[in-house]
């Protein structure tokens, strides 16, 4: 799975939890998950759990805390696979 494929899958995981759908239309690596996409902190937990399932990885609290933007999530997945 390459970077583009991971990016698209991460965006697909985020999509149901996004409260600013207009921000998804121009989503990029530097799009922030809490700020730009307005995913709230409870749903961020769901995002982490779904990423674990989708990519077969385990994400620690420290690692989750380091994910600010979509690109961070993609880099985390690529680093753990």
């Amino acid at each position, binding site marked *: 799975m390459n970077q583009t494929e991971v990016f698209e899958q991460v965006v697909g995981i985020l999509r149901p939890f996004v409260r600013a759908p207009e921000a998804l239309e121009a989503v990029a690596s530097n799009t922030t998950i*809490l*700020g730009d996409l307005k995913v*709230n*902190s*409870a749903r961020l937990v769901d995002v982490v*759990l779904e990423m674990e399932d989708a990519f077969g990885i385990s994400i620690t*609290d*420290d690692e989750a805390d380091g994910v600010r933007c979509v690109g961070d999530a993609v880099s985390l997945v690529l680093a753990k696979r």
Partner: protein
Amino acid sequence: MLSARPSVTLGNDVVDLGDPETADAHLRERFLRRILCPGELALFRHAADPKARLWSLFAAKEAAYKAAVKLRPDTLFAHRAFSVATDLRSVRHQAWRFSLLMTQTRDWVHALAFTGKAPRFVVGVAKDDPSRDARRLLLDSVAAELGHGAARLAVARAPSPLHWNGLAPPRITLDGSALSLDVSLSHHGRFVACAHEVRDASGGGASLARPGSS
């Protein structure tokens, strides 16, 4: 006269129990284990209303995080890093201990985490823009507290590269000058909430605007 530094550090959080986001999380074991510490899991499992207990604990952790990040901007944002005491009256994070005041109604739960004297909090109903509504609620309460007209007050957030969203926690300004009064804002679903330091001679405490009265 306001001192140069806030005498209280506080955070607050409200959760709408009727919001679809809160519907089934209490039934999902992995979600629970991601959020709750072992002692909190026991509190949850023995609660008469597990759903309300989960979101009360969640709100307590969020409130304590909002307070902690004022003391240390790079505080780890992880729910399990904040541990609620079994008596539900405090939250611990590393070496810090925050007093905790939790309120539960049929429709919402609210948590207030703080150091020092008990702050005042208000919960109200969101109208059209919850962020703006929460700010209005805060300005009205602070105006009543300080005896100034709300029009002279504003909520400001300074740019801060140290914070996760690039913004420092909200502060109150009076005629454009920052006050040292610590404040906190929250909104979720149908509800908005605010909390602020109390500076009157009568001491701290809470006031509650029941839904529909704000």
